[in-house]
């Protein structure tokens, strides 16, 4: 055996940037996170050439699970073409040799900041959500040690109290993005700041969801086919953002999550936030052959799990 045989050819970087120790640690944590759905597992959160708070949590998970045969889609608030998404995608591709796409159907790994695709993800796909604040109890218990004890005891009374106070003061739930959910009837979890529109998509989903907060050094998971229920009362229900009457000016899509774009005359126009989906609709309208998957919400705004979203009767107060 010669030294040349033992030595590896010189490379500028480790595969996927992180060294094997770092990846192994993240991988161990991912497996425990999948075994305890919704429970925040601490991890080391290594340095990356991107500042913490800019998607390093999701990035470390993506780098730890990706191999050269993966196809990666990166989105930021639904957009494939925002600066943050473009930079992360380019970095992942340079460090792992993965192919990239904007098509949610083709991707094997989808790293996302604050949105889930409109098209349904399928078995075998992994959704990696970037998380700024993994602690759903932060608003009611700023002390993280106490919050962890509350998770240990499954003591979410303060959360229910907060929810009740919202109904009393405002007549409805005021939480917008990162609406807290209960996973597998046990852990209260922040689904990351996805809009309420996306929250039901985690329930009994076919795909695996991994959520990771790089700055807070916590990662957690929702395995496929797992119950994810937003907190709500028996008589006051969780509601998604109302998208009725909004038409995407680029693609004509209806009952999808829309960006509001203020116009000079004070009115609003709307564009569907999922740019990969819009791109496919536009290509189909041009007559190009394009495969568009089934969406979580159909064109009437009906969610694909019947009965999951309940209609609120107007006189509930």
């Amino acid at each position, binding site marked *: 055996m010669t030294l040349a045989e033992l030595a*590896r050819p010189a*490379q*500028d*970087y*480790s*595969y*996927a*940037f992180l060294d*094997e*120790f770092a*990846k*192994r*640690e993240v*991988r*161990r*944590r*991912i*497996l*425990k*996170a*999948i*075994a*305890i*759905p919704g*429970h925040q*597992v601490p991890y080391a959160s290594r340095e990356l050439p991107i500042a913490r708070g800019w998607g390093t949590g999701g990035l470390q998970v993506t780098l730890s*699970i990706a*191999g*050269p045969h993966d196809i990666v889609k990166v989105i930021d608030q639904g957009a494939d073409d925002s600066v943050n998404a473009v930079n992360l995608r380019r970095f992942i*591709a*340079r*460090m*792992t*040799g993965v192919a990239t796409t904007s098509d949610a159907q083709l991707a094997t790994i989808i790293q996302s900041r604050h949105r889930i695709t409109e098209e349904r993800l399928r*078995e*075998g796909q992994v959704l990696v959500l970037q998380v700024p604040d993994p602690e759903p109890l932060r608003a009611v218990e700023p002390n993280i040690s106490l919050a*962890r*004890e509350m*998770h*240990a*005891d499954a003591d979410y009374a303060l959360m229910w109290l907060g929810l009740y106070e919202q109904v009393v003061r405002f007549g409805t739930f005021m939480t917008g993005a990162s609406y807290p959910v209960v996973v*597998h009837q*046990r*852990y209260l979890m922040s689904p990351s700041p996805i809009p309420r529109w996306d929250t039901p998509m985690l329930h009994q989903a076919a795909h*695996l969801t991994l959520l990771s907060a790089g700055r807070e050094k916590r990662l957690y998971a929702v*395995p*496929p*086919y*797992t*119950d994810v229920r937003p907190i709500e009362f028996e008589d006051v229900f969780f509601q998604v953002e109302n998208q009725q009457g909004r038409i995407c000016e680029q693609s004509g899509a209806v009952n999808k999550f829309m960006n509001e774009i203020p116009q000079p005359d004070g009115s609003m126009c709307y564009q569907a936030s999922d740019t990969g989906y819009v791109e496919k609709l536009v290509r189909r309208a041009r007559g190009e052959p394009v495969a568009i998957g089934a969406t979580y919400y159909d064109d009437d705004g009906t969610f694909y799990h019947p009965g999951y979203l309940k209609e609120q009767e107007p006189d509930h107060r």
Partner: protein
Amino acid sequence: MAVPLMSPQEERNHVTFTALMRALSHPGREQRLPDTGLAAFVAIGDALVDLETSYYTPHDALAAALVRTGARFLSPLQARYQFYPQLHDQHLDHLRVAPTGDYVAPEDSATLVVGCVIGSGPAVELRGPGIRSAIEVRIDGLPAAFWSLRAGTLRYPLGWDVFLVAGDRVIGLPRTTRVEMIE
């Protein structure tokens, strides 16, 4: 700048981890490991264990192979990764005391890698996260008391997680999976 490449060992670790991640995401569904027999246990050890963690195995040859990882060899009472290529009745005492985590940190629990035979023997029905409704698998080569011991040890969210290995095939059994014996 050239895209960095995986070394053969890194590739083996990645393939192994991917199989384990899928196995745990879809309990009861077989996944393929890059190696078979005892080498499959070594592959899982290489993919998961290093000097930041600990292991235990009653199998001498496997213990010798895992020394290379740099992990500490601890007793079944403490070791986070425990490898049983053949689970005998006397090992059930190890499983009884294996760490199940505590309520603040249920992830501080053991991961058991257990040899078995998949596809023959008593049928069990699995339900829980990762399974659409229910899945039936046949598992042989385990002590008869294994399933009742698992049920007795598990107090969700406390418990240990199991990978059942047969040849180059692996089935994940996270603590969330409910197991029912089929007569």
